[in-house]
Structure formats: C-alpha cells, structure tokens
C-alpha cells in the first residue's frame, strides 16, 4: 500500500478515502475518443478525475508516473447492456414488473465485475431481463471491485427501465407442458400491455395532480395510495426515466416507437435492435439510440436477419449506436466487438471506439462523467498493449475513479500467491485427518451464484 498511513487515517475518520496521489500516464498513444488521438499523449489523474489530457501535462511533484510507452490509453469501456453483478434478473411472473429492479439485488462479489475490469470495462448498465413487455428498473454500476453493493452504483446516473418486445415477452418458447401461459402470447398483446400500462400511469398521474390541486385550493383531500408499479411509468411519461427496450424485428420496433409517441415518450435506447438497420430512418426520426451486438445471429427466428453491418448502417442514418455485450463473456473483449464494425460496414476506427465508450455513455445519460478522456471527467481508463481494435491487444491496466483496480502484472503476482496459499492449505488438510478427500466431501462452494 503506497500510503498506508493515509489509508488508516481515512478509515479511522470514517471518511471516504481521499486520492491525494497524483498519477501521470505518459509515453503512450492516448485515444481520447472525443478529442482525437494524441501520439504520444499524457494524462494527469487527480482526486479520481482526469485533471489534464494533452501532448504533455503538468507532472506534479510526487506524482506516480506510469510509463505507457508503446501502449494505448483509452477511456474505460461502457457496456450498455449487462446482467452481471445481480442476484436475479427476471421477474417473469407478471407482464409488467416495474415494481422490481436490479438495483435492489446488486451482488458486489460477482467475479465477473473483475473479469470485465480486466477487459477494460469500467461502467455497466445492469438491466432486468426480457421476460415481460415492461420489465424492472436498471442500475448503472462502476466496476469498483472491492466496493460494497451501494458503492458500486454510479451516483447520479439517470434512472431507467427495461422494456422487451418479441419472442421473449410473448413466451412462445420453452413453456413446459402444463404450465399456464401468461398474457401476452403475441406481439399484438405485447403492444397492448405497454399501451394499457401507459394509460394506467396517466390516470395515476392525474390522481396525484387532482390531489395536489385540491390541496392548493385549501380543500381537505386524502392522498392517493402509492403504486410502485406505476410510479416509474409516470417518470417515463415525464421523461425523467430512460426506457431501454429489448427488440429484434423491424415491425415490433416501429410499434414500440408509435405507442411511445402516442404518449409523448421518447425511447432512450433500443437494445439488440437486430433489424434496426431496416427501420433506421424511423429510429433516427424518433430520436432513439441503438445498442446492438456485433455479430450474433440465427439463434432464433427473430435473429435470422441480424447482420454484422447493423451498427454501421444505423450510424450512417444518424442514429447514436453502441455495441453491448449482454454477456459476461462478450464483455471481456468489447474492444474486438467494436473492431467488427470496421470490418463489416466500414466504420472508422474512431467511430468504432465511440461505440463502446462515449456513445453508450450518452445513451445512459452519463457522458458528463465517463466515456472519453477529457479534463473533468472521472478517471476511468484502460491501457492496452496494442491498439485496442487489434485482435492481439491485451489490456494491462484499468483505472476506475483514478484507482488502479486491475493490473495484469499484479494479477499474475496475486495468482502465484494464491497458488502458494492453496498448496499450503491443502498440505494442512491432508495432515489434519490423513484421509483422502473426494469432491463429494467438500462443503458447498462459496460464492457461486446463478
């Protein structure tokens, strides 16, 4: 620990740890994403923020200097669609589950937080699943590995909610015999559920408006009973809660946009949106963002027309596009997934990088904090040993809020220490009872959550 005394003092005071140590990263190529490429470039980190970015920055006395010669410094990757770090994902028993949210079940011990950090991901949008037309609320986390559940949450991120269209919410698949089917069972029904919910939310909002008006007139009135299902939907109507809508096919995409427009709502992001390229004009006119996979296709009918050029085509029509993972595995190489938009669709390298940094940040309304290397933003960054769009690029360091939370070198040292500890413990174990232990005699594995 560099500053163990300071650490101790902070702990004793119960105050949040102050980042007194300045860090300068120099010698490498800096991919700022919004302000071009600086080669070489330098970054000064102070108090968890990016203090300076440029061809050369102030090097304060006592600053830790990281030599990034030959390396590439980029903003921490932002994943607009993730399901890690949550104890549960789908409340599928009802068609509208807006009374639930992943923010209530954040699991700070999920090792995927760390594994993705190792891939350069620093911010993830933890979404409810796609079992219902209107799903639960999301939470945006930072990969502050080691923090508790509350500490992971990106403070100030606009609230959001999951919607879902198509095959998943209509549950046309996979219902075992004898299980009662839940409405809706068609895309018509999906649209109906969303429209009905908006109607209910409007009425609920009116009840409160009437109550407030009565109070203002000095009348005695009872406040309406709160409804936790409808409150978030009122926020959607008010435009203060972002809708992230899972969708695949062009028809369902259009239907959602039209229902939303009926109620004056703008959909923040269409998620997956595999046929978005077919209705790109309409999506652009509505003003929704699009967050898609790079190249998955054919795993179900609604993914049969998915093409890897989707991101590029939508971008060409003026849509703000991000590449997401929807997978703890895929998230580990989102830099490669972004590279696929260069190959399929001819995006420039800068545009490709935007799709995993500033674009998702804008979509989530957190671009004031993250998504690019600019003075004043959070010091979330990743350092790759090659250009991050290379298949061979390996992330070496990831900083979150200026803290080095992943270092490949330290990780390797840690695993040696862990292996040594394991050997030692195993030796003790066999000394203990002399009996050979089969796997059946081990206790339940800790920390395994599914």
């Amino acid at each position, binding site marked *: 620990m560099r500053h163990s005394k300071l650490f101790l003092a902070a702990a004793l005071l119960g105050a949040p740890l102050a980042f007194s140590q300045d860090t300068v990263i120099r010698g490498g190529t800096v991919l700022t994403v919004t302000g071009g490429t600086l080669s070489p470039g330098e970054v000064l980190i102070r108090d968890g923020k990016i203090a300076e970015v440029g061809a050369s920055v102030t090097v304060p006395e006592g600053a830790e200097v990281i030599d990034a010669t030959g390396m590439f410094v980029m903003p921490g990757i932002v994943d607009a669609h993730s399901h890690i770090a949550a104890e549960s994902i789908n409340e599928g028993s009802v068609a509208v589950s807006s009374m639930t949210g992943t923010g209530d079940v954040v699991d700070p011990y999920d*090792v*995927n937080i*760390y*594994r993705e950090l*190792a891939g350069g991901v620093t911010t993830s949008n933890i979404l409810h699943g796609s079992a219902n037309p209107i799903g639960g609320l999301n939470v945006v986390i930072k990969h502050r590995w080691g923090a508790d559940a509350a500490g992971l949450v990106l403070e100030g991120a606009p609230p959001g909610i999951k919607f879902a269209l198509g*095959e998943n919410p209509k549950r046309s*698949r996979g219902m*075992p015999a004898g299980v009662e089917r839940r409405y809706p069972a068609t895309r018509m029904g999906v649209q109906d559920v969303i429209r009905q919910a908006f109607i209910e939310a409007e009425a609920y909002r009116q009840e409160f408006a009437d109550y407030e008006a009565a109070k203002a007139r000095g009348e005695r009135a009872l406040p309406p009973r709160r409804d936790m299902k409808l409150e978030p939907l009122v926020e959607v109507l008010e435009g203060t809660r972002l809708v992230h809508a899972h969708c695949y096919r062009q028809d369902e995409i259009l239907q959602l946009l039209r229902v939303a427009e009926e109620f004056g709502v703008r959909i923040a992001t269409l998620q997956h949106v595999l046929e978005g*390229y*077919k209705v*790109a*004009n309409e999506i652009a*006119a509505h003003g929704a963002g699009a967050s898609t996979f790079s*190249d*998955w*296709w*054919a*795993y*179900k*009918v609604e993914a*049969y*027309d998915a*093409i*890897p*050029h989707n991101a590029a*085509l939508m971008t*060409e*029509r003026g849509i703000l596009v991000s590449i997401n993972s929807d997978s*703890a*595995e*895929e998230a*580990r*190489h989102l830099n*490669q997934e972004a*590279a*696929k938009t*260069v*190959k*399929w*669709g001819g995006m420039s390298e800068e545009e490709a990088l935007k799709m995993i940094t500033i674009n998702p940040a804008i979509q989530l309304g957190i671009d004031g904090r993250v998504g690019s290397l600019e003075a004043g933003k959070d010091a979330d960054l990743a350092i790759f*040993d*090659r250009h991050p*769009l*290379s*298949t*061979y*690029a*390996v992330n070496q360091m990831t900083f979150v809020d200026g803290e080095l939370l992943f270092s490949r070198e330290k*990780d390797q040292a840690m*695993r040696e220490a*862990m292996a040594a500890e394991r050997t030692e413990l195993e030796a003790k174990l066999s000394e203990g009872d002399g009996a050979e232990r*089969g*796997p*059946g*005699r081990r206790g339940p*594995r800790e*920390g*395994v959550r599914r």
Partner: protein
Amino acid sequence: MTRLGRNAFGIALALTGVGAIAAGQEEESWIIQNARIHTLAEGAEPIESGSILIRDGRIVEIGADVTAPAGAAVIDAAGMDVYPGMMDSVSQLGLTEIGSISATVDTVELGEMNPHLRAATAIHPSSEHLPVARANGITHAVVAPGRLGGFGGGGAGISGQASIVHLDGWTVEEMDIDASAGMVLTWPTLSTRSFNLATFSMDRRSFREAKEEYDRQVAELGEVLDAARRYAAAGEAGARERDIRLAALGPVVGGEMPLLILAQGEREIRGAVEFTKEQGVKMILLGGSEAWKVKELLVEHGIPVILGPTQRLPGEEDEAYDQPFTTPGELHDAGVTVAFATFGSSNSRLLPYEAGHAVGYGLPQEAAIRAITVVPAQLFGLAEDFGTLEEGKVANLIVVNGDPLEIRTEVEHVFVNGVPVSLDNRHQSLYERYRSRPHPER
C-alpha cells in the same frame, strides 16, 4: 443467393463480383499474381511476391516465377497476402439453421450409441451459414454431430461420425472431403450435480452415486468396442449377420479412425486418455477446457487437442481470468498439438479470432495460423491435399489484405476446391439492400 460450382455461369458471376479478375478464354484455370504467399510448408519462408496457378481444382504451380498460361484468369493480388483456406476443426455447419427451432436442427439424434450415423447425411448445402463462414475465409470444416456444448451431465455417448466438407458445392456429395473422418464421443461427466428439466433446478447426488454411474458408462463404452472387435473378427471368419452399429466402429478399433472425444474437466480428460490407451485406439481431444492441467499427460501419449472456443469464461471462480486465453499458448509451449474450432455454425466465421485471441496471451502468431490450417489437415489425415499451399494440393485458399487473424483484415478472394467462390451471403445481401433504402426527405 449465388452459389457457384464449376460452371461458366458461376464463374462469370464470380468475375463480376471481383473487379481484379480478368476474364480468361478458358475459365478452367486461374493465376493469382504479385501476392505475398504464406505457403505454410514446413520450413518455408513466405514468398514475398509470387504467383499461384490453379487448374482442375489443384495448385499446379506456385513460386516467385510462374508464367501465366494463355487463357488463365488473372487475379492481381498486389499488396495482398495469400494463405491456405481456414479449416474449422469442429463445427455444426449445415446441421442447424435456427437454433431455437428444432425443425431446423439435426445435430443430436436420440439414443446414446449412434456410431453408424454420419453428419454428411444431414448437411444442408443451402444453409445460409455456409456462405457466411466462407466469406470470412473458412473453406472447409469438420461437421460433427452431437451436443457439443457438452458441459454438465447428459449427452454422454457416441453421437456419430464427423464429416469433412468443402464449404461450397451444388450437393453434399460435391462438398465431400471425408464423410467418415472421426467418431464423436461425448465423454461421461463425473458430476454430483445435474440439471433437472422437469423441476428446472439442480439435482444433487452423492459422489459415490456419480462415480458408479460414470464407471458404468465407461465400462459400457469398453464393451461396445470389444463387441466391435468380435464383430470384425466374426466377419473375417465368414459370419454374415449385419450390425451396422458395430460395423461402423470397425475403423475405430482397427486404429484407422480417431475417436473425437469431447471432454472438458481434468478428471474426464484423464479418464478418456486412460480408456483410449487401454483400448489401443486413436484419440483427439475436443474442448479440453482443463487440458492445461494435464499437459504432460497429453504430450506423453501424443494426444492432440481441438480447443474451442477461446472466448469463454473460466470454468471456476478461482481460475485465472485469462485461463481460456492462455491455454492454447501453454499447451503449445508444452509440446501439445493444438487446433482451434468454433464448435458452432453461425459463428464459424469467427474461427480466426478464436485463434487470434490466444496470440495476445502467448501463442505464437504462426502457430495460431497453423492451428486453423495445417494442423487440422494433419490431424484428420488430409495433409497430402490440404493445409499448405504447395504444388499438387487442393486449391482451398484465401486472398486477404493483411493478417487474417486481425478482425479488421478483409477477405478479398476465396477459392474452394479450386474455384473462386462468391463472397455474397445473406448478410451482405441484406446489407446492400437496406443500404440502398431511400433516405427520408429532408
């Protein structure tokens, strides 16, 4: 969709698609000129600027100084690289179209002992997956029946024979390279937990119970191979009763056909190695998530591994985050023969990136390229015809504008079975169609 074979019409279409090709008089031969040629022949350096002459499906001449015969169609590959076509060592190409629609899926037959079934029987030449894979440089592939996801309980047994096919041809017979290339065996998993589909939850059982079932399954496999030996002996002695299951296992017990054993865990790999040594049969390990734990064993017994996918999560929480990425390099360094495979269909085009991902984590780049070209050809006994660019070999090759393991590299031309194939596919057509959709009036 444009599907090309050896006919003038198809060639004409191919030529319109690739401007660099000048139409020849006889469309039976092609010459690729001015290319950097990575022959991958043993000990050979790349030819910095050379030509490849292709006729009747084969490479006729290759070198720095090849004269273009009159009538040969010319492909100017200046500034480009030529490599052998890539081979997906285990795929399900043509056996499945839309994963969630069982009517389109022919990967898994009922029953646990189906050595007589062959993948080639059910490969759909019109599958949209084939041109998609081909357009990214996959020219031929092993197609294997079975549940290749293979983790957890269930699915153990022999799922049938893997077939090797060109990813182009009017019929599956034209695509054929080797219809019976290997016998796919999903090794039993010794697991105390299994997923119960009826209750949608995990069932647990004692280790003893699991071990007993595992031992029984392994014993049964041994009995089947013994029966195949007796059957072969009886046949030689004149017995006339036919058993096509046992007959199909003849080449396995005879040592001609490898068992392609899908096993992930250390214990299962050890069990499979022990079994094949006892039985005296050839083994190629598929999957091998924990092969890194048994490197010495694999080297000792000369067992090659078809790894894949590289891009997967570690098997255990306490496994290093990058273990799946470093495994190929670790095995290579230890002297294990390594090939890559996608084990999939729609994602078969990603084969070069499964290999490429391992390069950042220690696998030499050249070894990664070899692991998707030469090595699989050798593993399946096809090295005389496939895997390198040498005179006399089948002309399955790719022309690319850089390193094929890099995502940003474009595949410019693909030859399958000696013929340039269209790079058009479902994705490209949809792309072009919707790209031409009118923009809204401003």
